[in-house]
């Protein structure tokens, strides 16, 4: 860090080598487009180069830099047509008045997810569903479940409490789960119709 602050190009290059893949992947989670994600990655490192002097060395570098990267991606996203986001309340499971579940569900998706080809298809669909989430939820599920970052690191990067992170993560997972269930149900109906078609 200090070497970069002193203008050491080699140190900056080492930083690029170390973080470019993660920054690209975070950017892709926001933008879902390779070209935009690459440009956002470049923006993030440019900001790093220019603003490294403002970094407080008593803090964790990665959480500061990942925030820089997310800001760069969102800045680029704002230039595009606003995305349509969903109301998560519509995807929270429903229960009887006594708080218990009405009936089993979701077996088809579990069976489908065991098959590699179907699981791959579901993963592609899931990426689209994540994009429908409001930003605060999308960042959390992308960083924890896709990037597999430690929840404590994500909470620090996003400057939120662990409790808030868990709440957002759970809501986001419930949404993606429900959307995948819908996809599986449609696929199953299609299969059944094809089977009975003359």
């Amino acid at each position, binding site marked *: 860090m200090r070497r970069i602050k002193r203008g050491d190009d080699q140190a900056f290059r080492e930083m690029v080598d170390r973080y470019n893949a993660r920054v*690209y992947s975070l950017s892709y989670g926001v933008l879902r487009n390779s070209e935009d994600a690459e440009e956002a990655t470049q923006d993030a490192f440019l900001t790093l180069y220019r603003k490294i002097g403002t970094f407080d060395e008593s803090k964790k570098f990665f959480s500061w830099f990942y925030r820089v990267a997310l800001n760069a991606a969102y800045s680029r996203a704002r230039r595009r047509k606003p995305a349509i986001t969903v109301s998560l309340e519509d995807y929270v499971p429903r229960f009887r008045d006594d708080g218990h579940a009405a009936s089993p569900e979701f077996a088809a998706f579990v069976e489908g997810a065991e098959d590699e080809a179907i699981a791959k298809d579901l993963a592609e669909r899931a990426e689209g569903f994540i994009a429908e989430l409001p930003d605060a939820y999308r960042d959390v599920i992308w960083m924890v479940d896709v990037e597999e970052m430690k929840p404590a690191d994500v909470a620090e990067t996003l400057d939120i409490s662990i409790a808030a992170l868990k709440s957002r993560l759970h809501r986001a997972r419930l949404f993606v789960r429900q959307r995948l269930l819908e996809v599986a149900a449609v696929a199953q109906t299609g299969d059944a119709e094809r089977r009975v078609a003359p």
Partner: protein
Amino acid sequence: MKHDEITCKRLILESLVEYEDGSMPEPDRHELERHLAHCPPCIVFLKSYRATGRTLKMLKPREIPKNLAEAVMSFVRARCDKKE
């Protein structure tokens, strides 16, 4: 958390994340597992929740553009005066 306080709603909406990430205290975990042992809908839900997690992990590894690091270096060099 007492056994008679656990409903499917409470388990699914309030407790699942901590159960899954291992941060739930052992007594609560035990009570929750007692509920699961007698609740097929919650078992099915848990399986689907885990299947969702496995599906999301399949989004990795994402293909990183070749020469991304070089592109970044060129971009930064082009925009920064090296005297900076």
